[in-house]
């Protein structure tokens, strides 16, 4: 049972980390090169669909990762440290998302065709927060994967 939970944890964490990375490498860079109006349209459209996949993936990664840790009989040393760091990093992904990215997304959704002047500063703030949660997501995945491989 613990092995199955470990496999599921690693798969979920990989999907979370890869999903965050492709947004950083692809979407963020694309929006920077578009006009403000087109960038906001793409951002809002992407956000509408991604909120069905990424938040559940992040919650599931934490939940299954915690269940795997609790169900293991003998976890100690480096493996325990890696699993705890991974869980904390997954919480950081969710925390940054809920505190910064989600409120900014909600404000952008209310805009009409005319993009307000504050957009540039808001986009930079969104990009910075996304970079932080992407880094946290990579840390979570690498820690889960290494803990799994050495466990």
């Amino acid at each position: 049972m613990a092995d199955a939970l470990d496999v599921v944890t690693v798969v979920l964490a990989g999907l979370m980390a890869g999903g965050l990375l492709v947004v950083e490498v692809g979407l963020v860079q694309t929006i920077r090169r578009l006009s403000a109006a087109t960038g906001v349209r793409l951002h809002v459209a992407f956000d509408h669909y991604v909120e069905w996949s990424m938040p559940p993936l992040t919650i599931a990664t934490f939940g299954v990762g915690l269940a795997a840790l609790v169900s293991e009989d003998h976890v100690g040393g480096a493996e325990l440290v890696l699993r705890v760091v991974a869980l904390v990093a997954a919480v950081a992904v969710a925390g940054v998302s809920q505190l910064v990215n989600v409120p900014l997304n909600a404000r952008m959704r209310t805009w009409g065709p005319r993009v307000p002047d504050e957009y540039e500063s808001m986009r930079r703030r969104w990009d910075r927060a996304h970079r932080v949660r992407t880094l946290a997501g990579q840390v979570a995945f690498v820690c889960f994967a290494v803990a799994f491989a050495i466990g």
Partner: protein
Amino acid sequence: MHTLYAIVVILSGLVAGGALNNALAMGPALRTLDEQTLSEVQRHWSPLPARYSALASVAAGLAGVALLVFGDLRPAAEALVAAAIGLGALLLVSIEATRRMELTARGAGEPPRAGDVAVVRRWHTAQAVAAVASLGVLACYSVAAGPVS
């Protein structure tokens, strides 16, 4: 050997997560745009994910081959072979779809041409196939990594 297993799982996970996000969020988001905007967005966006996913796919494949050649095959060989087949399919689909997609790239202000939308639609289908294949690769590598512990 543990290091190699961790590497293949991490690389295939990053590829699978990116492909899944493209299929579930980016593809549907792009379909909401009109042809002119779509052409402009695709010109900037379509080459970007390939910057890491192609490299990560090839590296995961090479590390998987190294595991097949040098690893303890008894517990993990079937999962590793399945992962290698999945990676091959993923690369073929991605390379062909990206090559066709690049044909729709236009200079700024150029109007889209007839057939662009069909190419973009096929590209989205290819992304869905890539997502399924890469998810299978990640699952195979993760299962293969398990019995080593």
